[in-house]
């Protein structure tokens, strides 16, 4: 009888892809890449991860690794594109889900608040924006610090400052 071997690395990578593809694609799109380019970046990241693990390199903090490599490749791609898409990923974040339970006035108020929030996010310095996006994707401060190559304290300060700015938008 043939004994099944351990799951090969290819399938482990596909499992990781299933886990991280949407968060990573959302993140690289939010950096200003069209979705089609974002998909290519994500593919490149997981091929690089395959090589990384195949060479027996560390398996610790793979989520941080995936976002760090994705961040760097996305910035290079953005430079190659020679254009800066609407900063928070026009194709992605500017998607409005119409909640059926709201009346037209509530829709309008919600849409205006949303517009103000998007505008405020767009005005944030890029590192602070990245900090916000990465935290929303569930990265811990230590992982964010690694992706953006800043200190742990820097992450904490930036998130506090960013949320404070965005909370002022809510007051209007």
């Amino acid at each position, binding site marked *: 009888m043939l004994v099944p071997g351990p799951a*090969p690395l290819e*399938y482990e990578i596909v499992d990781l892809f299933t886990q991280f593809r949407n968060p990573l694609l959302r993140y690289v799109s939010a950096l200003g890449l069209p979705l089609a380019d974002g998909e290519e970046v994500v593919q490149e990241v997981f091929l690089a991860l*395959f090589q990384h693990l195949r*060479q027996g390199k560390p398996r610790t903090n793979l989520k941080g690794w995936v976002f760090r490599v994705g961040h760097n490749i996305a910035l290079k791609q953005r430079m190659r594109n020679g254009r800066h898409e609407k900063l928070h990923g026009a194709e992605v974040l500017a998607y409005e889900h119409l909640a059926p339970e709201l009346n037209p006035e509530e829709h309008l108020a919600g849409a205006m608040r*949303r517009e103000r929030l998007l505008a405020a996010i767009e005005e944030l310095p890029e590192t602070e924006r990245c900090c916000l996006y990465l935290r929303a994707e569930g990265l811990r401060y230590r992982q964010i610090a690694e992706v953006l190559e800043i200190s742990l304290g820097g992450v*904490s300060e930036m998130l506090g*400052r960013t949320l404070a700015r965005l909370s002022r938008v809510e007051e209007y």
Partner: protein
Amino acid sequence: MRYQDDHLSDAQLVGIADWEVIGREARRLEEHLSACWHCRARRAELERTIADYVRLHDDASQKMPPMEESRARLLAKLIQLSATPAVSVSPRRFGKFAYGSVAACLILAAGVVLYLNVLKAGAAPVPNGRLTPGATRIATKEDLCSSQAFEGFYPIPARMASSVFKSYRIQNPSPGSYEVDYLITPALGGAGDIRNLWPQPYASGEWTAHQKDALEDHLHELVCTGQVDLAVAQRDIASNWIAAYRKYFKTAQPLPDHMAFSVDPPWGN
């Protein structure tokens, strides 16, 4: 930012909410919060802002394109990549010049491989890895072992078969001489995708579509009886079906029983 010297900063408030402050410091901040309405109100404002941002984020999630196609594409690339040796290089010890030289060599090698592949295009007992790397669909073992495992895969649409022949530069193929074959058979989770199809000749020496059909049948049985892992079967058949035949039938040469074995219909009949 601090509101006042004796209140917590926004960074501290967010840090507590995110469970990023631990130990003695966390206890000190929690103690302050329990006594300070001002800080608790501020924390609630920040939490509301987080909730508003999360709504934007959730809306964005609904716009993500489906994953199946990109996952199958990644798997096909990984299978191709796994056939190449892993190269271990320490980037920090590698100078720009060395990177340039290696890049130039790789480009040259890729060009040569591409050129040879183009020259070699045409029917062969094994597919051209560039044209047919293999592709899978999302399916569980239970799906594949049910009687509906092949529904919708046969016959292969004429337009798709024609594209397969065209990509292999085969003009006017004679009916019955080829099987337009799924590299990873649908019964093992193969996708109905042109990257998973190639024109397999019935007359190409000792390794033909007959042996491939026999292997597909046997592997399906091994998977469904739990003797072989589905992922292993997919990988083996996609990377080199002749090697897989030798492995699973424990033979170096095709078995006599398989000389006329046929499950899938020939093309054009």
